[in-house]
C-alpha cells in the first residue's frame, strides 16, 4: 500500500484532478463499502489470479485499519495450476482470511457432475458455485469480471441480480444510474458485484505495478513445457493433455489469465517483469480472453450463455 491520490499535473485538469488509476480505485472502493453497508454475508470470489488479488487489495484498502469484513470463495475445478493454489493459500494465511473452497472434483467423484467430452471443466463450476452460495447464504458475491473482457460482460451491471439458480437475465437488468447501486433482492436470490467493471487489462497491470501487488509467478515469462492445441499453448499435466499427436516442447511463455488448465493458454513472451508485461499489453494485438481462453471460442455468444446459466 504505497501512495495514492496523486494529483495529475496536467494543465487542463489541475489542481483538482485524479489520475485514471485513482479514479478507478476510488470507484471500486466505493462499491466494496456499499456492499459492506447493505449486505449481510458478502463473499469475494478468489482464485489467487490477478483480478482476485486486485479485488482483495482494494478491499484491504477500503476498510483499513480494520480487517476485510468478507470471506473468500474459490471454485476449484481440480485442474487449477498448482503454483496458483499455493499462492492462494499463502495469501489467505498472510491476511488471516477465511477461504471457502467448492470443489468440482468432489462433484465428479460423487457422480453429481459428469466430465465433458472436450475435457474442459469451466462450465462445470456453475453448480458447485451456486450450491455453495445457497448453503452459506451468501447474499453478495464479488467477481473480478471486467466489461472490456467480452461483449456480453460489457452489458452487465455492477450490481447484477441473480435468481436462486444464479441465472442472469440480460433483459431484466435494473438500470444503473449515477453511483446509486440497487442491491435489493428476495430471499434465495443474490447479487453478483463487479467492482472492476470499468477497468481494462492495462489498468489492472498498471495498478498492480503501482501498488506492488504480489502475483503468482506464472504471470511472468518462464520456461515451461507446453503443447499446441487449436492454436493455444497448454500446459502438459494430469488433466488430460497432451493427447496422441500433440508434442510437448519447451518455450518461454507467460499467462495473461489464470483459470482451468484445460482451457487456459499461455502466450509466447519474454516479459519477466511488471514493466515488461505492461509494455507487452500496451502493444498487444489480441484481447486477453481471445488469446488465452478456449471456452470463449465456442460461439459468438459463449460467454452470454454461460452467464445466463449462472457463470461468474
Amino acid at each position, binding site marked *: 500500500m504505497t501512495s495514492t491520490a496523486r494529483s495529475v499535473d496536467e494543465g487542463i485538469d489541475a489542481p483538482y484532478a485524479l489520475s*485514471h488509476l485513482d479514479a478507478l480505485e476510488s470507484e471500486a472502493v466505493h462499491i466494496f463499502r456499499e456492499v459492506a453497508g447493505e449486505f449481510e454475508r458478502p463473499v469475494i470470489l478468489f482464485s489467487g489470479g490477478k483480478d482476485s488479488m486486485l479485488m482483495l487489495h482494494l478491499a484491504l484498502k477500503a476498510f483499513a485499519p480494520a480487517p476485510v469484513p468478507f470471506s473468500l470463495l474459490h471454485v476449484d475445478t481440480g485442474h487449477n495450476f498448482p503454483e496458483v493454489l499455493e499462492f492462494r493459500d499463502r495469501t489467505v494465511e498472510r491476511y488471516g482470511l477465511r477461504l471457502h473452497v467448492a470443489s468440482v472434483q468432489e462433484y465428479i467423484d460423487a457422480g453429481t457432475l459428469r466430465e465433458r467430452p472436450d475435457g474442459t471443466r469451466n462450465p462445470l463450476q456453475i453448480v458447485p458455485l451456486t450450491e455453495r452460495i445457497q448453503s452459506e447464504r451468501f447474499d453478495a458475491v464479488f467477481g473480478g469480471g471486467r466489461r472490456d473482457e467480452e461483449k456480453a460482460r460489457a*452489458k452487465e451491471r455492477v450490481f447484477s441480480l441473480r435468481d436462486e439458480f444464479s441465472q442472469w437475465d440480460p433483459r431484466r437488468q435494473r438500470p444503473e444510474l449515477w453511483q446509486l447501486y440497487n442491491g435489493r433482492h428476495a430471499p434465495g436470490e443474490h447479487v453478483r458485484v463487479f467492482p472492476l467493471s470499468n477497468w481494462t487489462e492495462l489498468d489492472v497491470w498498471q495498478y498492480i505495478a503501482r501498488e506492488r501487488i504480489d502475483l503468482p509467478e506464472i504471470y511472468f515469462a518462464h520456461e515451461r513445457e507446453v503443447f499446441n492445441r487449436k492454436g493455444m499453448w497448454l500446459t502438459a499435466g494430469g488433466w488430460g493433455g497432451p493427447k496422441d499427436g500433440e508434442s510437448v516442447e519447451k518455450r518461454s511463455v507467460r499467462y495473461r489469465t489464470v483459470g482451468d488448465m484445460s482451457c487456459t493458454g499461455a502466450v509466447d513472451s519474454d516479459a519477466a517483469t511488471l514493466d515488461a508485461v505492461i509494455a507487452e499489453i*500496451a502493444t498487444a494485438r*489480441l484481447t486477453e480472453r481471445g488469446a488465452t481462453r478456449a471456452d470463449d471460442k465456442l460461439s459468438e455468444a459463449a460467454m452470454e450463455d454461460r452467464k445466463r446459466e449462472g457463470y461468474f
Partner: protein
Amino acid sequence: MTTATEQFAEQLSATTLLRFATAGSVDDGKSTLVGRLLHDSKSVLTDQLEAVEHASRTRGKDAPDLALLTDGLRAEREQGITIDVAYRYFATGRRRFILADTPGHVQYTRNMVTGASTAELAVVLVDARNGVVEQTRRHAAVAALLRVPHVVLAVNKMDLVDYAEPVFASIATEFIAYAESLGVPEVTAIPISALVGDNVVEPSAHMDWYGGPTVLEHLETVPVSHDLADCPARLPVQYVIRPQSAEHPDYRGYAGQIASGVLRVGDAVTVLPSGRTSTVEAIDALGQGVSVAWAPQSVTVRLSDDIDVSRGDLIAPTASAPDVTRDVEATVCHVADRPLTVGQRVLLKHTTRTVKAIVKDIPSRLTLADLSQHPEPGELVANDIGRVVVRTAEPLALDAYADSRRTGSFLLIDPADGTTLTAGMAGTAFAENAQHAAEAAAGAPDDEGWDF
C-alpha cells in the same frame, strides 16, 4: 536509471479519465462513429476485428459492420438492434475513456438517461442532410436534464452534402441556440464524416474552412474537473470503520466517497440529518494521511468529537450545509415497465440513505421534444419524464440536482421486489426560459412516429 519502458508506464499512468455518452440512432451513423473512434485509436484488437469480419460475412455484408463490436447480446445481433447501454473502453496517450453507448430505438429515454447520468460529456449526432430534428431536441433535452457539463454536436455525413460550410453552420447555430436555452453550459459543434473518417480522429482534408478540433482531440482536452472549489463539500457516510483492535483501540473513521467539492482537515462540519457539529481531525486517503481531498476520492474521515455518525449520514461544511427536508420535488425519468402512480408507497434511495416514501402528487408529464407540460397525468409509464412530489418518512439532506448531480439524485424503488422504478433529480429541471424556447423550436413538427 529510467528505462524506456518505465517512462512509457509513467506516461500511461498519468492520464485522466473521461466518461462520455453517445446519443443518436443507427441512421445517424452512431455505431459507425463509435466503431471509428475505437478502430482509429487502435482500441479494437485483432481477434475482435476478426470476429466482426466473420460475423459481417455471415450476415452477407461486404465491409466489417463496426456496430457488431458493441452489440454484445445474442438478441441484439439477431435483431440487428442495440437493446442495452454498452460500455466501451479505449485510451490514447493523453486520456482513458469510458464510453456509454446508448441505443437509438428500444427504451431510448431510459437508456440515454442511464448513460448520461455518469457522463461528463455527451456526443449528439445529427445527419447533415436532415439537420436538427425532433430526435435531436430530445437528445439535447436529456443532456440538459441530466446536467451533462459538456455537449458535442457531431454533424455527420458531411461527405453527403459536399462538405459545405453553410450546411454545417446553419445546423450548429440552430442547435447551440436551443441547447443554451435549455441551460446546457457548453456546446462544441464539429463537422464530421464517420464513414470516411473526416474529423473523427484525423483532421479532414475536405473541410479547410473548419479550424476546430477533431472529435477525439476534443475528447482528449475537455476539462474533467470543473469548478470543484466552488461546490460545497459533501461526504455521504457509507460505513463506519472501527477496528477495536489492540493496535487501534479507539479508531473511529467515517468511510465514503466525496460526492462533491473539496474537504480539508480543520473544516468545521455538520452531520446531517442530526445537525451535530464537529471538526475534521484527519483524512485518510486509502492508506495515506492527507490534509485535503476532493471529489470523487474515496476517503475515511475522522472527527475531533465523539458524536453519533452512521451509514446514511451526510458530512458537510457547517457554512454550506444543505437543508434537511421530508418533502421532495423533483423531475424524474420513469425506468420500470410498471407505472408510477399517485399514492404509491416506495423506497427512496439517496446517496447512502434509503428511506420509506410516498408519492404525493404527479403534477405533470413532460414531452421531451418540445418540453410541453401535460398536467396531472395520474401516472408515469416507462420512459416518461415528469414532475413528482414525494414525502419521505425520515429527513433527507438533499441538494438541488442543478447544484450537485451526486447529492441531488435519487432512485425510487418498489419495496415489494426491489425493482428500480424511477430516477429522480431534485429541484427545477431546466433553465427558466427553456419551455418557451422549446415550444418555439418545435413549431414545425417532424414526427417520426416515436411516442414518449
